[in-house]
């Protein structure tokens, strides 16, 4: 419970930083998705049940601020966290390349889900070329920021107060 609350609060901090500071900085029109990187990072350390309790409130917080549509971010984060957690359990290598690759995969899944859920509603009128350019730029940005967030999450997860006891 303590772990879940801590990770939800860090997620909330990421959301506030995203809405206030990181939205001012863009790389050829693309903005970094701090929460997506955070979700990818925590999915590599938390178990599936913990993930639901952490990802669900973070997604709802993000959706409360999102214009026009409610639920899209929660859905994206739930699916991404589940997939990342599923694959991560089968990988035994501890290298920084793994979270970067997961960030790449997650950004791809995010764009596919946005394409499926937002495009049919007609709210978004971006051309395919524009979406492709945004996607490439966002991947570069997310991959560049990923190691920092991953290391913070790793440190928090390893801290004595939040360490999980082994169960046999």
């Amino acid at each position: 419970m303590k772990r879940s609350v801590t990770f939800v609060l860090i997620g909330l901090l990421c959301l506030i930083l995203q809405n206030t500071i990181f939205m001012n900085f863009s790389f050829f029109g693309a903005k970094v998705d701090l929460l997506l990187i955070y979700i990818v990072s925590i999915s590599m350390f938390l178990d599936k049940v913990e993930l639901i309790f952490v990802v669900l409130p973070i997604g709802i917080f993000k959706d409360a601020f999102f214009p026009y549509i409610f639920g899209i971010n929660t859905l994206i984060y739930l699916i991404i966290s589940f997939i990342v957690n599923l694959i991560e359990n089968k990988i035994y290598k501890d290298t920084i390349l793994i979270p970067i690759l997961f960030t790449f995969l997650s950004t791809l899944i995010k764009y596919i889900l946005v394409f499926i859920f937002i495009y049919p509603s007609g709210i978004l009128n971006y051309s395919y070329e524009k979406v492709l350019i945004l996607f490439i730029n966002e991947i570069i940005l997310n991959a560049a920021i990923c190691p920092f967030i991953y290391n913070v999450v790793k440190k928090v997860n390893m801290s004595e107060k939040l360490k999980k006891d082994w169960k046999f």
Partner: protein
Amino acid sequence: MDFLKNRLLTIILVLCLVLTIFIGITANNRSNEGAIQGVINSVIAPIQKQVYNAGQRIYNIFSFLSSISTLRKENIELKSQIQDLKLKLIDYEKIKFENTELNRLLQYKNDNNFKYISANVIGKVGDNWFNVVILDVGSNDGVKKGCYVRAADGLVGKVVEVNSTTSKVMTILDENSKIPVTINETGDDGLLIGSNNDSLCKVQFLPSVTKADKGNIVITSNITTNPDVLVPSGIIVGTIERIEYEKINLSKTAFIKPAVDFSKIKKVQVLVK
């Protein structure tokens, strides 16, 4: 906990289904307003306001450092602009006097029933998809959907969603912002929309014979389809950067640089009836 572990996939699938229904309903109404959103916005908005102000200070330091090299050139340009504006001011005073006299003769009624609500920008949302800013005023302060929002330099956009203490404003950079505008110098009407670009928006459906040119000022026009919303005319939107001819709809499109610097926006006014 064991029950959750055993039924995990089922729970996730049910959650996805519920969320899909939510997405369907809100996307159809094009509105993300409700009790949950209102409560979350009200709780987080005060914290966000403080962080936004701190973030703006950090951003200002970065932009100041990057602008040092261009300051001298900008200074020379501004000095020449001041000279031009001084000459225009003399003309303006003369025309203003004439206008007052003529209005008095015609007994023209000036119907400016505006009420301004001052607000602070407390965040920017919408990721890469939408260009939306959050204000710290809501329905409790009298803000309504569709109200126009302006900053000291010019038009910011219009209110698209209202909660009790916060509201979301779609800026003129957003692709969905369809605002009627007029070219000040020529009087041609057009429709302002965002161009998916951080610094430019465009005015579409200008007549193909328009004499509008680079440097002309674009202002809001008072055409409206919603009787509840008072459309203020004459608010500066920006200046024309370039004009292109669109063969498909036989009209011209003007690309304009907004008067408002959206990266530094802090204080705004909401115009209500």
